[in-house]
C-alpha cells in the first residue's frame, strides 16, 4: 500500500466535538423568529374519495395562522420517477395516513387541536393490500386511474414501464442473459423457493423534519432532514412550482437516514404552510408518522429457481420479484430497477433471467433502505444456495467459491468483473466460523448452528456527475464545499482526509462546508454508498484544479515553472529544492486576495462512465462503476422450546477498496451487523385488515437495544480486498453492502441449528417455534404411518 499521510489513518471525526456537546445543529433545532408549528392531518381510510374538506373551524381557533388542503396545492403532480402524488391529496386518498390537510399554529398543541376541527367527508373505495393481488392481470381495484397519463420521468437509467392489463404495476425490469430455458434443460439438479422480506423501517433516531422560512426577497429557504442534496432542491422547486434560484435548500446534520430520508415528504407541506402564513413553519413528524409515512423499506416477494450441475456449477437462475411500493411509487422505481444487481454482481451464471416488478397497494408508500433492494434478492439467493449445497452434498463454502465471479469473468449483465474481493472476504469469514469444527451438541433446549452469506452492493451507474469546490486561503487552510449531506456516515471527515492528502497538509487545516445550496455545488446526495467514491473523486479533482491555480501564482513569484512546484503543510516549494518555498500568505495580498484573478477556488466535475444497457435484456459492457463486496458469518443458538435466537458469534469481512478512515468503516460494519440482527429476527411493520399500522412505535416495533446485539468480543469485522482502480485512493463505498448479507447469514445459521428453512423474514420466535412444531408434528405423523404399516 502506498505510504499515505492521512488516507488509511483514523483522525477523529470532524463533527465529534459538536455532537458530544449538543452543539451540532439538526433541522429541528433551528428556531427562527416568529416560527409556527405545523401538523398534518392524515386520511383515516386506506382508499377513499374526498367529498369535501372544511378548514374554517380550524382557522377560528386562536393561534392557528394557516390551514391548507389539496385545493391550495399546485395541480401538477410530483415526486420520484412517476409524478403520481400531489403535495396534499386532492380527490383520492390511497393509504391510511395519506396527508389531506395541514395547519400552522403558534404552538404544537394548538396545531394538534386544530386538526380535530377540520371536517372531511369521504366516500370509501375498495382496497387492495396484497402485492401479488394488486399486481395481477385485471386487478379490480385500481389505485392510480390516471397512471398512464401521469408524467413519467426517465432519470439516470431508470424508467417506469407499464403493462396495460396490470393496472397497478408501474415497472417491469428485465435482465436476460443467455437462455434460461436451455440452462434448466442442462441442469442436473433444480431447486425452487418463494422468499419474502417484510416492510422494515429505517428507524433513524431523528424524525423527519422540515423548516421552511419564506425570506423577504421571495426566496424560500428550506432546512430539512433530507439525504438528497441538490437533487432535492430541484425536486422541491418543481413541487412548489417556483424558480430553482428562489429555492434555497440546507440539510443540517441528519440524525441518520439509511434511505428513509430520500425524496420529498414533509418539505413541500411545510413550504405550502409557510408561504400561506408568510412566516417560518417547522413541521416535525411524530414517531408514528415516521413509521407510517416515512417511506420504510419496500416489502419484497422473490420466486427463485436455480439449476445446478451435480458438481455444483450454477447453470441457470430465474427470479421473479414483486416489490410492494405502497400507495405511491416514490423511489421504489429505482429500487426495483437497480436492486436486480444484487443478483448479478456476485455469482457467475451463464443463463439468468430476472423479472422484477413494482406495484401499488393501499398501504403506506415505501422506498429504499440501505442497499436498495440488493438485500431482498440476496436473502433469497443465499438462503437457497445453502440448501442446494446440502442437497448436492457439497460444502457451503465450496459451492459458493465454485460459482463466485472472479476478475475477468463476464457477469450476468454482460460486464467484465474486476477488482472483486468476494473470495478474500469469504475465506476470512469461513476461517472465523471454523466450519470444519464438529457441530456443538445440543445443550438442553439449545441447538447450535452456523451460517454464512456473501453480498454485494452496486453503486451509481449511469452518468452521475458531482461537483466540488476547493477554496485555498492565505493562512494555509483549505475549504472544501460539497452539497453532500452528513448523516453520520462521516462524509465531512472522509472528504477532509482526501483534501489533506491532496495538499499533503494537516487534516486540521481542512474545513468542510456542506449541504447549503447557497454556497455549495451540485451533488445528488447521500445514498447508494456513493459519497466516498463520487464526492471523494470530485474533491480530488477540485483540489488538483486549485493546486494548478496556486502553482501558476507561485510560479510568477518564485520564478520556477509551475510543473516544478509542489505543496505540503501550507507552503509551495520547488521540487528537488525544498529550501526554495513560499508560505501561502506570501502568495496573497493582505486580506487574502490575489493581484490577478481574485482568489483561488478550484472546481471540477467527477463524471462516471457508462454504456447504456439494452432495455429488453439489461445487458451492457460497462454499466456499474463499482460493486462493494462482503461475506459474513454467524453462529447462533436456537431454543427449540421458545424459538429464541442468541447470536454467539458474528464476523463480517468486506471489500470496500482502500478504507479512507478505518475506524469509520468499522462503525458502518458494526452498525449494519446489529441493524441486520433486528431485521433478521424481529423487525416488521404490521397492519390490520383495514390497512391501519398497528405497531407504529418503538415498543411494538422493536429495534435492537444494547441487550439484543452481539457483545463486543462476538462482533468482529474487517477488510479484505484491494484498492479500486477508479476510487479516490482506491476507496469504494461501504454503507449499504454491510447490511446485505446479514439476514441470509443469520437465517442460514438458524437452518443449520434446527434443520428447517424459514423463507420469511423476520425470524421471530413465533415463526421459528411454529416451524419447529410443524416439523415435529410431521415427524410424528410419519413415524405413526410407518408403525401402522409395520403393524
Amino acid at each position, binding site marked *: 500500500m502506498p505510504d499515505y499521510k492521512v488516507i488509511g489513518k483514523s483522525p477523529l471525526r470532524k463533527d465529534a466535538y459538536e455532537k*458530544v456537546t449538543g452543539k451540532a445543529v439538526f433541522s429541528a433545532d433551528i428556531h427562527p423568529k416568529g416560527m409556527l408549528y405545523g401538523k398534518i392531518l392524515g386520511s383515516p381510510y386506506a382508499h377513499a374519495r374526498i367529498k369535501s374538506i372544511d378548514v374554517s373551524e380550524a382557522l377560528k381557533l386562536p393561534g392557528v395562522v394557516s390551514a391548507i388542503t389539496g385545493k391550495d396545492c399546485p395541480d401538477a403532480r410530483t415526486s420520484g420517477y412517476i409524478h403520481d402524488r400531489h403535495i396534499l391529496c386532492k380527490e383520492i386518498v390511497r393509504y391510511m395516513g395519506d396527508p389531506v390537510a395541514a395547519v400552522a399554529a403558534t404552538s404544537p398543541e394548538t396545531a394538534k387541536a386544530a386538526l380535530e376541527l377540520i371536517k372531511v367527508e369521504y366516500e370509501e373505495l375498495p382496497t387492495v393490500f396484497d402485492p401479488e393481488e394488486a399486481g395481477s392481470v385485471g386487478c379490480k381495484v385500481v389505485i392510480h386511474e390516471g397512471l398512464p397519463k401521469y408524467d413519467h420521468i426517465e432519470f439516470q437509467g431508470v424508467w417506469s414501464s407499464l403493462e396495460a392489463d396490470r393496472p397497478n404495476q408501474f415497472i417491469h425490469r428485465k435482465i436476460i442473459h443467455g437462455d434460461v430455458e436451455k440452462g434448466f434443460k442442462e441442469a442436473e439438479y433444480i431447486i425452487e423457493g418463494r422468499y419474502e422480506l417484510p416492510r422494515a423501517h429505517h428507524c433513524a*433516531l431523528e424524525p423527519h423534519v422540515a423548516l421552511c422560512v419564506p425570506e423577504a426577497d421571495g426566496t424560500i429557504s428550506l432546512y430539512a432532514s433530507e439525504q438528497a442534496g441538490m437533487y432535492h432542491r430541484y425536486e422541491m422547486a418543481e413541487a412548489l412550482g417556483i424558480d430553482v434560484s428562489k429555492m434555497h435548500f440546507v440539510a443540517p446534520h441528519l440524525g441518520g437516514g439509511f434511505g428513509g430520508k430520500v425524496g420529498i415528504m414533509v418539505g413541500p407541506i411545510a413550504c405550502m404552510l409557510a408561504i400561506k402564513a408568510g412566516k417560518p413553519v417547522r413541521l416535525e413528524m411524530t414517531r408514528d408518522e415516521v413509521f407510517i409515512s416515512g417511506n420504510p423499506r419496500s416489502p419484497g416477494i422473490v420466486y427463485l429457481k436455480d439449476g445446478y450441475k451435480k458438481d455444483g456449477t450454477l447453470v441457470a437462475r430465474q427470479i421473479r420479484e414483486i416489490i410492494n411500493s405502497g400507495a405511491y411509487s416514490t423511489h421504489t422505481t429505482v429500487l426495483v430497477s437497480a436492486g436486480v444487481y444484487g443478483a448479478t454482481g456476485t455469482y457467475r451464471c451463464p443463463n439468468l433471467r430476472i423479472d422484477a416488478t413494482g406495484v401499488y397497494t393501499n398501504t403506506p408508500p415505501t422506498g429504499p433502505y440501505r442497499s436498495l433492494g440488493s438485500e431482498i434478492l440476496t436473502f433469497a439467493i443465499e438462503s437457497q444456495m445453502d440448501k442446494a449445497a446440502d442437497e448436492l452434498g457439497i460444502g457451503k463454502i465450496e459451492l459458493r467459491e465454485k460459482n463466485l465471479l472472479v476478475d475477468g469473468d463476464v457477469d450476468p449483465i454482460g460486464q467484465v468483473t474486476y477488482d472483486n474481493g468476494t473470495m478474500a472476504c469469504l475465506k476470512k469469514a469461513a476461517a472465523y466460523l471454523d466450519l470444519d469444527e464438529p457441530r456443538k451438541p445440543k445443550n438442553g433446549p439449545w441447538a447450535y448452528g452456523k451460517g454464512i452469506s456473501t453480498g454485494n452492493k452496486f453503486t451509481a451507474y449511469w452518468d452521475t456527475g458531482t461537483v466540488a469546490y476547493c477554496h485555498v486561503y492565505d493562512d494555509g487552510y483549505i475549504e472544501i464545499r460539497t452539497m453532500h449531506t452528513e448523516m453520520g456516515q462521516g462524509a465531512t471527515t472522509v472528504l477532509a482526509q482526501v483534501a489533506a492528502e491532496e495538499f499533503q497538509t494537516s487534516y486540521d487545516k481542512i474545513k468542510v462546508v456542506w449541504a447549503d445550496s447557497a454556497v455549495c455545488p451540485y451533488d445528488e446526495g447521500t445514498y447508494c454508498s456513493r459519497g466516498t467514491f463520487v464526492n471523494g473523486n470530485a474533491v480530488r479533482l477540485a483540489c488538483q484544479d486549485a493546486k494548478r491555480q496556486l502553482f501558476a501564482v507561485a510560479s510568477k513569484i518564485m520564478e520556477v515553472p509551475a510543473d516544478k512546484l509542489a505543496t505540503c503543510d501550507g507552503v509551495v516549494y520547488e521540487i528537488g529544492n525544498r529550501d526554495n518555498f513560499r508560505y501561502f500568505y506570501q502568495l496573497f495580498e493582505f486580506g487574502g486576495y490575489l493581484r490577478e484573478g481574485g482568489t483561488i477556488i478550484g472546481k471540477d466535475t467527477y463524471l462516471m462512465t457508462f454504456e447504456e444497457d439494452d432495455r429488453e435484456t439489461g445487458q451492457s459492457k460497462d454499466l456499474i462503476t463499482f460493486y462493494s463486496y462482503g461475506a459474513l458469518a454467524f453462529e447462533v443458538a436456537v431454543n427449540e422450546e421458545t424459538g429464541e435466537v442468541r447470536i454467539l458469534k458474528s464476523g463480517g469481512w468486506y471489500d470496500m477498496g482502500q478504507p479512507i478512515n478505518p475506524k469509520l468503516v468499522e*462503525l458502518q460494519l458494526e452498525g449494519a451487523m446489529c441493524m441486520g440482527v433486528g431485521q433478521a429476527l424481529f423487525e416488521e411493520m404490521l397492519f390490520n385488515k383495514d390497512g391501519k399500522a398497528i405497531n407504529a412505535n418503538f415498543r411494538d416495533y422493536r429495534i435492537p*437495544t444494547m441487550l439484543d446485539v452481539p457483545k463486543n468480543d462476538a462482533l468482529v469485522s474487517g477488510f479484505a480486498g484491494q484498492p479500486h482502480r477508479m476510487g479516490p485512493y482506491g476507496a469504494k463505498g461501504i454503507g449499504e453492502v454491510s447490511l446485505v448479507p446479514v439476514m441470509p447469514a443469520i437465517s442460514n445459521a438458524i437452518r443449520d441449528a434446527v434443520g428447517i428453512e424459514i423463507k420469511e423474514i423476520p425470524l421471530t420466535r413465533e415463526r421459528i417455534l411454529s416451524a419447529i412444531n410443524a416439523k415435529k408434528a410431521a415427524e410424528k405423523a410419519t413415524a405413526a404411518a410407518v408403525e401402522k404399516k409395520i403393524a
Partner: protein
Amino acid sequence: MKQIIKLNVNGLDYEIAAEPNETLVDVLREDLLLTGVKKGCDDGDCGACTVLVDGKAVPSCCMLAIDMQGKKIVTIEGLEKNGVLNPVQQAFIDQFAVECGFCTPGMILTSVALLNENPDPTEDEIRDALRGNLCRCTGYAKIINAVMAAKEMLKEQRKAS
C-alpha cells in the same frame, strides 16, 4: 392556563411560563433553546431526550416541566466545564462512539449517571444501564468502548485527587 415555574438547569435559574401538561423536553428545547436535548419518539422509548434530574438519567419527554421545580437538571450543554469536556464526552470522541449524533447526548448523560452510581461497571452492566438508549448507527460496540475508557479516565482522576 400557563403558570410561571422555576427551573434550575445547568446551574442557572430560569423562570418560564409553561402549561401544566407541558413536558420537560419541550420546555428545554423550545423555551430554553437547549436543543442538545433530542426528541426521538416523545414516548419514553428511545432515550434521545435523556437529561439528569438530581443526578439520575431520565427521559425528559416523560416528565412534566411543572414537577421539575426544586430539582437540579443537567442537559448535555451543562457537562463541559470551563472548556474541559466531561471524561465521558472525551471518551465518546476518542473511541469513535459517535455517528449521526442524535442519540449521543442521551447516551452520554446515561453513561455519566451510571458511572456516578457504579464507578467500575462491567460490559454487561453498561449494556443493562444503557438498554433504554437506542442507537441505530453504531451497533453499540464503540459506545461500550467509550464508557469503558471514560471509567478508566475517571479512575485516574480520582487517584490524582
